[in-house]
């Protein structure tokens, strides 16, 4: 099958999840209680909303990941042809990795990977 199988799989996933949830909805006898809608935290009423500023470290990690993930995507087509191309391809990828490694060293020096 071609790309249409992806649509079929998405439909299957939606059917599977929606079927499960709907079956639950049909079988369950609903009851109302205001405590059911509260956040499941400590038992003490929740103080502040969690939708506020968050630690910047996660953001920096995501940024670094993005850079090196792009590098990885470049390496996949290289890996397919490296056997045919031989030493030249190996040398080229070493140069490529060296340049990116310099960037990584810079990020490390700037403290982007430190959790402060």
């Amino acid at each position, binding site marked *: *099958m*071609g*790309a*249409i*199988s*992806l*649509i*079929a*799989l*998405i*439909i*299957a*996933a*939606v*059917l*599977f*999840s*929606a079927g*499960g*949830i709907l*079956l*639950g*909805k049909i*079988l*369950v006898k*609903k*009851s109302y209680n205001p405590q*059911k*809608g*509260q*956040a*499941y*935290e400590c038992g003490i009423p929740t103080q502040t*909303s*969690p*939708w506020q500023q*968050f*630690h910047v470290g*996660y953001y920096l*990690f*995501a940024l670094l*990941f993005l850079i*090196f*993930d792009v590098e*990885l*995507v470049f*390496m*996949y087509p290289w*890996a*397919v*042809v*490296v*056997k*045919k191309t031989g030493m030249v391809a190996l040398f080229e990828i070493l140069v490529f990795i060296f340049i990116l490694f310099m960037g990584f060293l810079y990020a490390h020096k700037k403290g982007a990977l430190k959790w402060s």
Partner: protein
Amino acid sequence: MFSLESITNSIQNWLYNTFQPWFALTLECVIVIALVTGLFAVLGLVLVLMERKVAAHIQIRLGPNRVGPGGMFQTVADTLKLLMKEGLTPDLADKFLFNLAPFIVMIVAMLLLAPIAFAKGFQVWDINIGVLYVSAISSLSVIGILMAGWASNNKYSLLGAMRSGAQIVSYELSAGLSVLTIVILTGSLQLSDIIASQENGWWLFKGHIPVIISFVIFLIAVTAETNRAPFDLAEAESELTAGFHTEYSGMQFALFFFGRIYQHIYCVCHRRHFIFRRMDAIAYWALGRI
């Protein structure tokens, strides 16, 4: 060699000879949907039990042993219980995203199924950039997890989701790079080619030192990516209750739980593709769930 190619080919030929092409294609889609949904339903039940049993025996416990012979129907009972539970949505949650997140996780899990070769010629889609497809789709699951954690309006959920996302993102690179070894050796991104190249022996046992190194890296990275036991700080039970799915209950929780397990299965399946030849998959699923 175990091959189902003749069966799938004959079914396809019969469909296309008997019906109009568009109708045959629709029927093919229906067959795929039925098979895949059945596979999910059965796998979820079997593998949860298997994990609990194996983990229990590793920790010198008995594990589930009350429902049915040797605890065989424990997961059936658990699923029925989850089915009878009311699926709650917190009052302050972002209701649309909260209810959308289980679907996203499930869709990702289902899409990852496409290039898995269960047997020769028994593949949903033998995509020619299979390795790239797998790494692309598997990183989509972060979206579902972050969506669930953020929409819950719960600090534990948000923290768990953030940790989970950071962990997936950090180990994605090492997993991707370790797979590169196999791509270099095979010279193809197609999963069936990778399997065919190992027809006379696994790469792992051919004495390639890089393959052994990459196998170990892949094993660790994939365990971390799916937040399994030694790397489960994203759902650290003693501090974050349950991580990103704290607020979920009933069937939505079950979907999350199953979705994660399926993802793990796929990681193991793909590990099997990359490092091993096609073989008794069940044994490797068991290995992966420990």
